[in-house]
């Protein structure tokens, strides 16, 4: 299976992004998704600068895909998306049907991200017909559903699984970061740049539950499917996705690579993974349970 790096979901400075992708170029990741997918007001890099980074990563041997916004409301957002869809050099991840529409009209292929709902074979066939060459399983669907979907997957379509990171759970018009600071969205002062992994939301009992990331709500806990690598391979998964976090992303990529190459045991890998999980790992969705259910322990009881 190939390892991919999803788009950075948080607001990072230009310096931080350039430094990050410099490290990624050296990492064993195969595919990199690039671009702003959450909020059009975040402009550390403009489209030309993203394309410049895309070229650098391509020169380093990576497959590069330009990701598009998940929630498109304003004409200016459609304009940026048109520019990305018509870049003529890199393929595109459609995170809304708007990008599906444009790419299919252009006769160009595209990846369908996890915020476009593909829950059954019928949806997959329509999108494959429109030009989809890879799809990302909805983060709330289970391995059982994946198994059914893989049996009738159209030819030429690859399957990607969100395997690591805080789970994207919802999108809204309202910016919850601005709301937290009691600022109007139109004058948000870009406060989300202060939280490079979003803002933790606890229950009133102090239990970590969600992460606020501007207009997006994520889980507090991170999805960890390192232990499901073998299962995913058996199910014919082509790509496993790691979602960037501000710390340890290169180490996490390396860990997935090492486990896949059997350079380290899964038990050791899972133990190492714990260090990179600020609020613990979850894999409930994969097992068909509540998403927050904790990652099942591997057989070795010495693993915590």
């Amino acid at each position, binding site marked *: 299976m190939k390892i991919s790096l999803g788009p950075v979901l948080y607001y990072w400075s230009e310096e931080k992004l350039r430094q990050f992708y410099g490290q990624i170029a050296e990492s064993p990741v195969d595919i990199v998704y690039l671009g702003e997918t959450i909020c059009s007001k975040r402009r550390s890099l403009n489209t030309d600068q993203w394309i410049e980074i895309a070229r650098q990563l391509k020169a380093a041997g990576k497959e590069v895909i330009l990701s598009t916004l998940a929630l498109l*409301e304003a004409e200016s957002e459609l304009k940026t998306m048109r520019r990305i869809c018509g870049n003529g050099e890199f393929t595109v991840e459609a995170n*809304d049907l708007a990008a599906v529409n444009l790419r299919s009209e252009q006769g160009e292929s595209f990846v369908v991200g996890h915020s476009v709902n593909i*829950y*059954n074979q019928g*949806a997959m066939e*329509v999108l494959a017909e429109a030009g989809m060459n890879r799809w990302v399983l909805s983060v709330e669907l289970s391995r059982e559903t994946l198994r059914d979907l893989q049996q009738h997957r159209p030819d030429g379509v690859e399957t990607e699984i969100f395997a690591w990171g805080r789970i994207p759970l919802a999108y809204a*018009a309202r910016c919850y970061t601005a709301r937290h600071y009691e600022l*109007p969205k139109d004058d948000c002062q870009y406060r989300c740049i202060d939280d490079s992994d979003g803002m933790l939301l606890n229950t009133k009992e102090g239990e970590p539950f969600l992460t606020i990331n501007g207009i997006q*709500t994520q889980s507090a806990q991170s999805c960890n499917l390192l232990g499901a690598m073998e299962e995913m391979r058996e199910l014919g998964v082509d790509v496993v996705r790691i979602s960037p976090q501000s710390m340890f992303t290169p180490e996490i990529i390396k860990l997935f690579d090492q486990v896949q190459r059997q350079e380290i045991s899964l038990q050791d890998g899972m133990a190492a993974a714990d260090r990179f999980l600020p609020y613990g790992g979850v894999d409930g969705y994969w097992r068909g349970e509540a998403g927050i259910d904790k990652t099942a322990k591997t057989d070795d009881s010495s693993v915590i």
Partner: protein
Amino acid sequence: MELVCPAGNLPSLKAAIDNGADAVYVGFKDDTNARNFAGLNFNEKNVGQGIEYAHSHGARLFAAINTFPQPSGWERWTAAVDSAAEAGVDAVILADIGILDYAANRWPDLKLHLSVQGSATNYEAISFMHRTFGIRRVVIPRVLSAPQVRHLAEHTPVPLELFGFGSLCVMVEGRCLLSSYATGRSPNTYGACSPGSHVEWIDRKDGGMETRLGGILVDSCGAGENVGYPTICKGRFEVQGKEGYAIEEPTSLNTLELLPEMMAMGIAAIKIEGRQRSPAYVAQVTRVWRAAIDACKRNPESFRVQSVWNAELDKVAEGAQTTLGAYHRSWQ
């Protein structure tokens, strides 16, 4: 401008039509619709009675089949489309691309509306659904500001249906997984958020109360206060030392004052939320909106929201307060 009202059962359907609804929307008794609540919704037999009542009173009936089937349940959704088409509904309200494809091929004469669960917030997305399936109407998620709705209306040939009143989803519908994160069941997969089977109301020794969803504390209050149903987006949480409604207060959407603007934009229909509510709610809300739409049609320039209308609506609003929601930019 058409007034589209909710009906969770035949008494509500009659209440809507008797009070001036142009159309009612219903669902079947299973997870094929986004109000999959116990004791609610229609079967093949009484949906026929509903259609008969609607048609004999000059109203239309739409069937919402607006959740997302997985392969193991696929036939339940296609059967719902078949039942709706065979019963003679005036349109089906669909969200899933696979089911839209099925309906468009199997029932080419059936009118297709794109549900709010289809998450279409821009004219490019609507264009894809229009050219692929020939959708006749699209229900817009409750995330756009009024100027954005106007821009949308100017750029799509597909008639728009807007939410006018009712419980307020602050997240883009069709893309909200908060409920399944806590319970394993979401509106997409199960047809309801915060399913009753996972809800706990716990009396505390101090006279207060707490609500939990899947064991997760969503809200709590002291003696004499009230907590609402534990919908995650309307719970109280703590963020960086600040406790409160981090996402949204329990309020209802009420857009009566935007009626002239919506009419000027050429909005095809106003949707009232609340298939899970009582026939009394449906009657009350329909009556007010019928009067308001008629007044606005007669004379849009001099249209004023009557205080008696808002007083009537406030009585049935969730949390007994209302908001313009995303239509008003400052809310965002």
